[in-house]
């Protein structure tokens, strides 16, 4: 696992409809240590996806630098795994083939890729649907596949853009617990973007507050792991932190 360093990152879009420039991100700097779980919260339109897409290499920054393990990031690559809000599973591939995609791109033999993909599917209890197509699965199951597809490629850092925003409330809580469990077991480095304060505080070690393209505040989350909902909904520290973060979001 390597360190991610973002230095004075700015992104200016040009809006052709109104003919004006939009500063989606202004001078954002942050550092994520190996094995750390960082959440970025903020209202919609504050630049969360822009930040994540820049780090993923899908967009070019207007100015500033992104360093992974000291090397500048150029374009998308397998060192940064991405989980999308819309799942982005390949509809023409089975679940197994989707998860095996990353390892196959690295040139591993097919049998090995499939064995590996199977192990990762077992991690989220989806081995039994390995040969189904994504559309045959519920939204929650599809996003589990999305998460393990990124994990199976063993990236240095996992980038997640509101991954659970499109599923129903029940499923969302289950997925959050599952992600917490996976994190606690394997300690990947994760940058998680969400507009849901509860979700951010539940998952992360540290919550960054983004508003109108600028980082406003940093809130550490000193809550013990393992984190599970039944315990945390009763937990006064958790409730206080959520309340504090929420008022910070409102004030920003």
């Amino acid at each position, binding site marked *: 696992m390597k360190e991610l360093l973002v230095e004075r990152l700015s992104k200016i879009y040009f809006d052709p409809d109104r003919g004006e420039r939009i500063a989606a991100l202004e001078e954002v700097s942050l550092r994520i240590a190996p094995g750390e779980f960082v959440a970025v919260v903020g209202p919609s339109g504050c630049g969360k996806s822009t930040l994540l897409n820049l780090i993923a*290499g*899908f967009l070019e920054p207007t100015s500033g630098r992104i360093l992974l393990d000291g090397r500048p990031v150029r374009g*998308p690559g397998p060192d940064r*795994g*991405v989980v999308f809000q819309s799942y982005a599973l*390949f509809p023409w591939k089975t679940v197994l083939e989707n998860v095996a995609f*990353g390892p196959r791109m690295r040139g591993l033999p097919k049998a090995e890729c499939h064995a590996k993909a199977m192990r990762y599917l077992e991690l989220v209890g989806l081995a039994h649907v390995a040969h189904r197509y994504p559309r045959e699965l519920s939204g929650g199951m599809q996003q589990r596949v999305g998460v393990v*597809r990124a994990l199976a490629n063993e990236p240095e850092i996992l980038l997640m853009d509101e991954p659970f925003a499109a599923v129903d409330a029940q499923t969302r809580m289950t997925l959050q617990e599952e992600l917490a469990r996976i994190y606690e077991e394997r300690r990947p480095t994760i940058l998680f973007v969400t507009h849901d304060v509860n979700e951010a505080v539940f998952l992360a070690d540290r919550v960054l507050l983004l508003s109108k393209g600028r980082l406003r505040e940093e809130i550490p989350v000193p809550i013990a792991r393992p984190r599970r909902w039944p315990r945390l909904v009763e937990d006064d520290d958790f409730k206080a932190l959520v309340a504090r973060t929420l008022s910070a979001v409102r004030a920003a």
Partner: protein
Amino acid sequence: MTASAEPVRAHRRARTGAIVQAALPFVLLLLLWQGLVAGLQVSPLVFPSLSAVVRAAGQGLRDGSLFLHLGASLARVAIGTAIALLLAVPLGMAMGVSRAVAAFFTPLLRFFSVLAGIAWIPIATLWFGYGFGAIVFVIFNAVFFVVAYNTLLGVATIPVELRRAAASLGARRWSMVREVLLPGALPNIVTGIRTGLGFAWRALIAAEMIATSTGLGYMLFLARDFYRTEVIVLGMVLVGCTWLALDRLLLAPLERRTIERWGVVRGA
């Protein structure tokens, strides 16, 4: 095993029923035809009797002329389509990959696919002379532009997240083409092939009427010169049946299956 035999039999019965149901209107039509022509004593110069058409078919089968014409038509379609696909799919994909390139070629391909097919017959016969070359060119032209346009559209409408996902999983140029762009565009490609062949088949019949001395179109048009209405009707039935077989047994199922299996759910 005996337990499962019953549903199979029921299934077969249902299938037979469906076939009978589809055939029945045709049987009625044939009866009506025979009855009307005999009852009204229609001159064979205006419309043939059913038996005359059957005789013409027998004659054509015996002297092999039916196979000659049908074979010539199918060979032209196959060759023209094959060349068109070999060029159109890679070109369409290349044009669709980048937004800038796609925006450049879309209006051009649109213009030429709107024009594709029959309108090129005069210039094709001028360039290649009457015969094989001109007809294959017209077929090629009908299929090429429509398929290239649809391929471009297919690639351009693949959700950007899928391309991003593949790129961040480490896919480079060729794996991107093979694993994402081609399968993602396939439903559009197949739809394009079906539309293009529809234009091509009509263009073929028209071209054969004026530009050659074999093929179904020629057979139809030659028969007109001699007022052989039974050969004309036979030709029409052949044209219809061949296209029906091509479209319903090959293209439509192919289209349905690719859309079902490979299709990305996207707004129409």
